[in-house]
């Protein structure tokens, strides 16, 4: 993480962006099962711009940096994901306002703020078969690991494991939000693309987390 002046915040954002671009086809195929297939494309096109503008983002502090990234995401990702992910980044920024570094409890607060932003913007609750269904349990696990005194790599790996298993469990749920919800009971049996994307991102973080 030595390349990143803002340390872990920057590293996390960059990993999310790289993961989104690398998984365009996979995420799109997941969305094609009962959705409309654009999820991978939307994320990739938006995060491509984040990567393109990477060097130019204002890095005064983590909040400023996150806010700038949020603007790109909100304004340039189409579909439902632009507003949802943009809101998540914006709320995370607010949660770290005026701090120059991010410790464990702050990270948890940022993730909670992001989830709440998504829930509000999307009018979604846990169990509606959305990305919240892996993001919220993964956040809980991070909080638990911090309470146990685990180190960074252990914490992130544990979060990834939880994100993956809860993402897989969304297959049992009936979609109540997004395009999938129109299919009613037919959405049961396939995983939620957003929830899987969260798992893939946490796994990418776990694979490279240094300290």
């Amino acid at each position, binding site marked *: 993480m030595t390349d990143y002046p803002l340390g872990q915040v920057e590293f996390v954002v960059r990993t999310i962006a790289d993961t989104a671009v690398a998984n365009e*086809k996979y995420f*799109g*195929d997941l969305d*094609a*099962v*009962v*959705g*409309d*297939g*654009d999820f991978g*494309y*939307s994320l990739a*096109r*938006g995060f491509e711009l984040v990567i393109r503008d990477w060097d130019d983002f204002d890095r005064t502090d983590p909040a400023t940096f996150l806010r700038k990234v949020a603007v790109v995401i*909100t*304004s*340039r*990702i*189409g*579909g*439902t*994901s*632009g*507003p*949802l992910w*943009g809101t998540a980044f914006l709320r995370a920024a607010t949660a770290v306002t005026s701090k120059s570094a991010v410790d464990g409890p702050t990270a948890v607060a940022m993730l909670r703020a992001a989830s709440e932003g998504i829930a509000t*913007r*999307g*009018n979604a609750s846990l169990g*509606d078969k959305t990305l919240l269904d892996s993001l919220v349990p993964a956040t809980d696990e991070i909080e638990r690991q911090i309470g146990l005194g685990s180190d960074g790599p252990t914490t992130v790996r544990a979060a990834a494991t939880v994100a993956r298993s809860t993402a897989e469990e969304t297959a049992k749920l009936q979609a*109540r*939000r*997004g*395009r*999938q*919800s*129109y*299919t*009613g009971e*037919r959405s049961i049996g396939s995983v939620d693309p957003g929830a899987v994307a969260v798992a893939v991102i946490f796994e990418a973080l776990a694979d490279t987390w240094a300290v």
Partner: protein
Amino acid sequence: MKKFVNDPNQFVPEMLKGVALANPDTLRYVPEYNLIMRVDAPSDDRVSLIQGSGSGHEPAHAMIVGKGMLDAACPGDVFSAPPMDYVLETSKMLASPKGVLHIINNYTGDRMAFDMGKELAEAEGVQIKTLLVDDDVAVADSTYTIGRRGVAGNFFVIKVVGAAAEQGADIDELVRLGEKVNSVTRTMGMALTSCTPPAKGTPLFDLGADEMEMGVGIHGEPGRRREKLADANTIVDELLEAVVTDLPYEKGDDVALMINGLGGTPIGELYILYGRAFEQLEARGIHVRRNYVGEYCTSLDMAGASLTLVKLDDEIVNGLSAPADIAIRTF
């Protein structure tokens, strides 16, 4: 993938550029925001009508910009709501002293993008109202979903509201009129095949050789159920039953009937559907006074069709019969 495409990521911009090149006297293309707008908009005398939604539904909506219909369209990528930014910038560029009307189809992504874009544009002084189209009877209005989807019926809303806007109607009047048209418009569609988004390169879903999808969404979302492939008459009867009983349309009603092709179905087949639908409606005592057979709101190259009914009154007929000048034309 059997498509005319160069770089799939440039599919939408290249299409929009083509539309503008074909209509240099009437349309302008602003590449930064995927924007197609009338060269004479905004006008001080006219509320500006804007529609945005995913691309892939052509001629909706980029090709129905013009006198008497939309002032601008800001389409997103194929099947994706436009980014909030496009909505914001389009609203600002089209700001008229009489206001800006957002006409949107009822999908989560579109509503979010337009809600956020509206809020930001209003903060910059643009007056905006919203008109929601939700004519699809395939999806039940439940507490879980955000309600019915907006599909081919948007043509009728835009046509009637566009005619009134051209006459200088104020924005509240346009909202009233649009809501009225939407409230008497119902649609159901079905797919014989899937469609292939250019960036995906493979069909969005699999339909067996002897299957069809009843109630399919215009983004290829699954519909009510998958059924065994049936003949044309059976398909029409099923669509008609769902649509007629929903409003319901009743004996003695005058209606407009639209048979809309989903992109891969030739017009000859659409007229076969029209003939059956006309006769079945007559048998129910419902009179087809206006008809629309062709492509109005498609799903890329999907073979399939949707059937729309609009209950007519004098005000709606006036709007539908008013002239308009858009990219889609015969001569």
